[in-house]
């Protein structure tokens, strides 16, 4: 690749492409005018309307709850799946589990959503559970597709982990359960945190699967945003977007700074 001015210019243009739309969302959230694209002076009016918008706030609360529970359960199940695949050698259902852990990663969301909805409907007919659909069914659906992502993250961490630690503990007479909780879990903890954050974000962001499997009274935040956006632009959505971007930017900046500091420390050692 040629050196000189071309590469930096292409890179800057790429970042302009990535950030220009986000920047315009933020700028127009402070627009006094109802029209999102015509500047009518600075105002925080839309933030005031956002605080009074009970539909958005209610949906946000539902989404946060679903994301919290989905991420937590997905981390437990995904870690278990990754551990079994990496440490158990051969077992009867190995090929089946490998397939079922990787398939959700390539499955189009519309198929996952439809198939889970039809499952819930059939189960309700046959065994009476789940009675109707709502937060529980959305959480189950999110756990199922998030645990695949968690399993991938944890698997790569387990692959990079030094086996001898676990073997030493076994040689010293620790039972497998004890080895897992005292040795393996603390070592892979960063992957669990990363997996949890990934699952939380995926769940919070999902529109398609939730639309299929939810029921009355349990609209998630993406569903409410989608219905507002479909009707045309809405400055309240810009205000909401600005708050989300701010929270995420602070979070990512802190995480990067921490990572950078830790890298410096390990280099000094």
């Amino acid at each position: 690749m040629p050196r000189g001015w071309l590469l930096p210019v292409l890179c800057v243009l790429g970042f302009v492409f990535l950030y220009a739309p986000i920047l315009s969302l933020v700028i127009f959230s402070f627009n006094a005018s109802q029209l999102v694209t015509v500047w009518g002076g600075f105002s925080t009016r839309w933030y005031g309307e956002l605080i009074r918008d009970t539909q958005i706030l209610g949906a946000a609360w539902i989404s946060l709850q679903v994301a919290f529970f989905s991420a937590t359960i997905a981390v437990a199940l995904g870690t278990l799946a990754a551990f079994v695949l990496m440490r158990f050698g051969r077992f009867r259902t190995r090929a089946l589990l490998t397939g079922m852990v990787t398939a959700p990663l390539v499955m189009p969301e519309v198929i996952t959503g439809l198939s889970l909805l039809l499952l819930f409907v059939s189960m309700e007919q046959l065994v009476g559970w789940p009675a109707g659909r709502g937060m529980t069914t959305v959480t189950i659906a999110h756990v199922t597709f998030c645990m695949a992502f968690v399993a991938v993250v944890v698997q790569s961490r387990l692959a990079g982990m030094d086996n001898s630690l676990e073997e030493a503990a076994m040689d010293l007479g620790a039972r497998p359960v004890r080895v897992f909780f005292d040795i393996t879990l603390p070592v892979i903890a960063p992957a669990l945190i990363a997996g949890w954050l990934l699952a939380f974000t995926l769940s919070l962001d999902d529109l398609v699967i939730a639309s299929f499997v939810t029921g009355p009274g349990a609209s998630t935040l993406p569903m409410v945003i989608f219905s507002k956006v479909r009707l045309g632009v809405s400055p309240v959505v810009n205000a909401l977007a600005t708050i989300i971007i701010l929270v995420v930017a602070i979070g990512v900046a802190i995480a990067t700074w921490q990572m950078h500091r830790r890298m410096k420390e390990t280099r000094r050692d």
Partner: protein
Amino acid sequence: MAALIERVAPLRWTAALLQRLGLHGRGLVVAVPVLWLLVFFLVPFLVVAKISLSEAMIARPPYAPLFEWDGWRLNVVMNLENFRYLWTDRLYINAYFFSIQVAFISATVALLIGYPMAYFIARSPEPRRTFLLMMVILPFWTSFLLRVYAWQGFLRSNGVINNTLISLGIIDTPIQMLQTNFAVYLGIVYTYLPFMILPLFANLVKLEESLLEASADLGGRPMATFFYVTLPLSLPGIVGGFMLVFIPAIGEFVIPELLGGPDTLMIGRVLWNEFFSNRDWPVASAVAIAMLVAVVVPIMILRSFQARLTEEK
């Protein structure tokens, strides 16, 4: 833990029962994720397959049962009409090929934009490298839906781009950009660009500087070094990034719905409309099964091929 199970009677009985079923120790640990995925991932596809063979009717749920007991006679009614309908109505075949076309072109464009960026970031000194990488990852953590919404504001007739061009005197009347196929390509390239950059970066950052120097010492011009050394070595990164954009783009629903026109029919959007607008559950299920066979199965094969390629490296 073991002592606790011994002491409490119901726990002891449960443990004994599980042992009888062959579910103890390892088996029990394996069973938890396997059972979850069986019930909530594999069985649902059997249900979809079943309903794709039934007939639509006005009821709750809106399809006719496949099996019916008539006294001591089991009646099985399998209706293949849904699949014949998918095959004969051009809409579905066109949507399928259009989805593949959109995904392929978008992934190619994302590669052309993402490669120079990934290369530049990988060759940057610290701390600039970490900072730039953070800038690539950051949009990924913000809402996907809101980023697509941002493009609506950019592309509409009274949007940012048209307003700028008119005020600069370059055009007189706004250009129709929203609700076109162009907007769909743009939206997909935009949202999936980080997925292209990250695997490319991970690959290019491992590239040995000494190889480039050796090529230069032997008289290779920068362009020759790039095409004979860098590009072949980064092939696994290119394939990885391409797949990460191509695969989710095929089944995309939100982007064609919000940025495309009413005739921008991609297969994910067709399934959605079949289900939510037409409320035809059997046809929606048939679309899902067809998609599974024509999209997901080839992708799984391609991925195992790709895994073998990276293993050989």
